[in-house]
């Protein structure tokens, strides 16, 4: 049996099991039947195993260049290196859907085993919802819509190879899996929310049960987006990291609503408020992930990720409609049971700040949604073709982002229920002073533009509040437990991980904001056609063109420009290239990047002497601060890990019998 046969059979068996699981879990929840639940559990576990087998089979087929499988023939070639062959699993539509299905099956198995042990009826209902979703995706991969194991009657000698852009950089191994993990794991809180609505529970159990899942999926989505920005920067060769491309927008929308959700759940946990709103946020987040998949895969928008149109578009749209009808319908039906415990509170309280923050995030999300869909809408209605791109999004989103940055500093400093004047003065004197220093630092380093200077000021503001919080926490632990500073600091992170991990995340966001502000405000461009031996000078760097040469590899031909970089303490060799893959008409630009903490030197080979390699046109960008973007992403991930880790168990205290106090007379 070949890998293709094994994979196809595994998927069909998994489909059968997930259908069974849907029925079994529904019955188990309805009748509280333990045996049905047990069989649903087995279906979930075995089903996940089968889908995993299918995914591994595909990777094997790619690694062994099995061109009898259509997907392999289209996305792999004999010359493709092993690494890129294996990650070719997510190089195109069918494989991506298979990966999605595998992750979803894994999440279903998790809910089946861990979830139902904790809250039997709620989790079992959620399990039924999960099974229903897995069934849909398994239907996609076992039908011509997205069947990765479709066969070719006459296998070709050699395949097409992956898309040129997808085998240029090892980051391709990270970006799609991270993003998909983030996307798919939002289905668990969603399933629990739907289950809670179906069962008519008016409380918070669904929310508390999925808190960690929500945090983890949010973090993975965020890091996946940053990885995508890094890929855009390092691979696409246009010198930027975010272009408000429809597919980028599709990824950031659920992240925005998920961020709002992470915060407003704190209000619900603490004060039992915003119940309907939180359910709506979870539904919105999950729906946006499906919308995102639809926009990426259906071919209705022109984008970097554009694939040929396939039947999957209408199917995904139908799925999205079904989800919206079901979830919004349930929410509207049950809204009478979702009562809040009272009014929110004073305007200057933490819950009020969270409320404002939610409003801002929703405005940001709706703007991105409108900007992405409006061209489609306008064309459908009137046939007029128009574009909505960077300038629009930047103009609207930057003020919103700055306002959110401000709230990020204010919120954690305000107590629940409200703050007095004295509290305000005590909390904010140092941060406001810090913001002035931040603004001054911006001006001194040559930043111009109100938005960028504000970003620096607000970044300093938030940083000061975080430092304040850590200082207070350490002081408190030292007073209470007599710990040394380092131990107190560590214990803050371990025992109050949610809070202090959250602060670390905020610091990461500050880094990202500063990176964006600095790179947008102070990037310097220079372009020159250099003869071999000539030098281009920009921003204190000197780039000398040493050679233009041709490089032949099995899977591609490149023309490389050797640039020697000196100045500003740099001393290295950059190799921007133009890479020609067989089967593609246009050459792909591969930038030569010298990354540094202060700035990046970004070089592009724009043109070269085709006859005698005597000259090359080099375009250079000096981009300050862009490395802080990747650092910030890493800090956000670290903070999320700190927040998600469970606190260490308290050690049991043993009293020996002899020490027990004698009973009083």
């Amino acid at each position, binding site marked *: 049996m070949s890998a293709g046969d094994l994979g196809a059979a595994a998927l069909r068996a998994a489909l059968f099991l997930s259908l069974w699981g849907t029925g079994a879990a529904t019955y188990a929840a309805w009748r509280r039947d333990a045996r049905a639940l047990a069989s649903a559990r087995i279906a979930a576990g075995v089903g996940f195993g089968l889908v995993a087998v299918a995914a591994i089979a595909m990777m094997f087929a790619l690694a062994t260049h099995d061109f009898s499988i259509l997907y392999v023939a289209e996305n792999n070639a004999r010359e493709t290196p092993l690494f890129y062959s294996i990650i070719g699993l997510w190089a195109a539509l069918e494989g991506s859907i298979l990966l999605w299905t595998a992750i979803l099956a894994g999440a279903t198995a998790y809910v089946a085993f861990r979830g139902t042990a904790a809250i039997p009826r709620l989790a079992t209902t959620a399990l039924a919802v999960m099974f229903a979703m897995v069934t849909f995706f398994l239907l996609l991969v076992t039908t011509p819509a997205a069947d990765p194991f479709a066969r070719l009657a006459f296998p070709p000698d050699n395949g097409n190879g992956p898309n040129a852009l997808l085998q240029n950089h090892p980051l391709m191994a990270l970006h799609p899996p991270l993003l998909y993990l983030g996307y798919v794991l939002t289905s668990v809180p969603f399933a629990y929310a739907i289950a809670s609505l179906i069962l008519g529970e008016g409380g918070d159990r669904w929310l508390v049960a999925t808190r960690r899942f929500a945090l983890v999926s949010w973090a993975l989505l965020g890091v996946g987006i940053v990885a995508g920005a890094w890929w855009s920067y390092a691979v696409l*060769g*246009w*010198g*930027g990291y975010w*272009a408000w*491309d*429809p597919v980028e927008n599709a990824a950031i929308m659920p992240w925005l609503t998920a961020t709002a959700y992470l915060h407003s759940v704190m209000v619900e946990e603490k004060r039992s408020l915003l119940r309907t709103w939180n359910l709506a946020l979870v539904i919105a987040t999950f729906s946006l992930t499906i919308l995102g998949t639809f926009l990426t895969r259906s071919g209705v928008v*022109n*984008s*970097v990720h*554009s694939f040929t149109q396939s039947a999957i578009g209408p199917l995904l749209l139908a799925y999205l409609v079904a989800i919206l009808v079901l979830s919004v319908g349930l929410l509207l039906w049950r809204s009478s049971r979702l009562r809040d415990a009272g*009014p*929110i509170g*004073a*305007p200057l309280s933490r819950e*009020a700040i969270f*409320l*404002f923050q*939610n*409003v*801002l995030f929703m*405005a940001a999300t*709706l*703007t991105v949604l*409108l900007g992405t869909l*409006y061209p489609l809408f*306008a064309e459908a209605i009137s046939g*007029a*073709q*128009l*574009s*909505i*791109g*960077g*300038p*629009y999004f930047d*103009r*609207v989103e930057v003020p*919103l982002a700055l306002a959110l940055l401000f709230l990020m500093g204010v919120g954690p400093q305000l107590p629940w229920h409200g703050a007095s004047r004295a509290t305000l*003065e*005590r909390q*904010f*004197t140092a941060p*406001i*002073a810090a*913001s*002035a220093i931040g*603004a*001054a630092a*911006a*001006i001194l380093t040559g*930043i*111009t*533009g*109100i938005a960028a*200077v*504000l970003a620096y*000021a607000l970044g300093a503001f938030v940083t000061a509040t975080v430092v304040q919080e850590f200082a207070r926490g350490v002081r408190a632990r030292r007073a209470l437990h007599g710990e040394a500073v380092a131990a107190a600091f560590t214990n803050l992170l371990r025992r109050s991980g949610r809070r202090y991990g959250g602060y670390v995340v905020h610091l990461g966001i500050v880094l990202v904001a500063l990176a964006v502000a600095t790179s947008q405000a102070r990037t310097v461009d220079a372009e020159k056609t250099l003869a071999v031996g000539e030098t281009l000078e920009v921003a204190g760097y000197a780039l000398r063109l040493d050679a233009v040469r041709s490089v032949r590899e099995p899977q591609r031909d490149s023309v490389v420009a050797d640039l020697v970089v000196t100045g500003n303490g740099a001393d290295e060799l950059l190799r921007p290239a133009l890479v020609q893959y067989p089967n593609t008409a246009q050459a792909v630009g591969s930038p030569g990047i010298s990354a540094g903490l202060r700035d990046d030197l970004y070089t592009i080979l*724009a043109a070269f002497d085709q006859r005698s390699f005597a000259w090359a046109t080099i*375009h250079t960008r000096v981009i300050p601060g862009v490395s802080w973007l990747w650092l910030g992403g890493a800090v956000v991930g670290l903070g999320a890990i700190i927040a998600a880790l469970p606190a260490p168990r308290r050690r049991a205290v043993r009293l020996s019998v002899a020490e027990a106090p004698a009973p009083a007379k």
Partner: protein
Amino acid sequence: MNGRVVIALALLALAAALVIAARPHEPTADERIDRITTELRCPVCQGLSVKDSMSDTARQMRDLVAERVREGRSDAEIQAEFRAAYGDWILLSPPVASWSGLVWLAPLAALAAGLLFAMGRLRRADAPAGAEPSAAQIAALRDRVAREEAAEG
């Protein structure tokens, strides 16, 4: 009062920094070219602006914009020239004075609606739970305490 002085000074410094940052000035030719090319869409790219794109077409468009700037044309005239050839599609953000200009209004409207809704949900600050009793109520309470003490004996 020290804290308030610090806050006031800091806010003043911040305002000054923002004024310096805004630096209203006559844009140079290069700045004008950058500004105009940021708003134009590269016809052969995936949504990139003419400023960001490395393609030959974008390069030629940049040259054309530079020439028109040198000739003294206004931003609107230069945009109009490209719009005549490529239609509104060539602009990366919809012109405000048109039906599509409504997309500029939408975020503002969403924000305003959301803020109004949020303000409505907040408890009014001037009606705190547990108000101070009035002077008459205090006097009445004192009377009652005195009477009860007298009754105790």
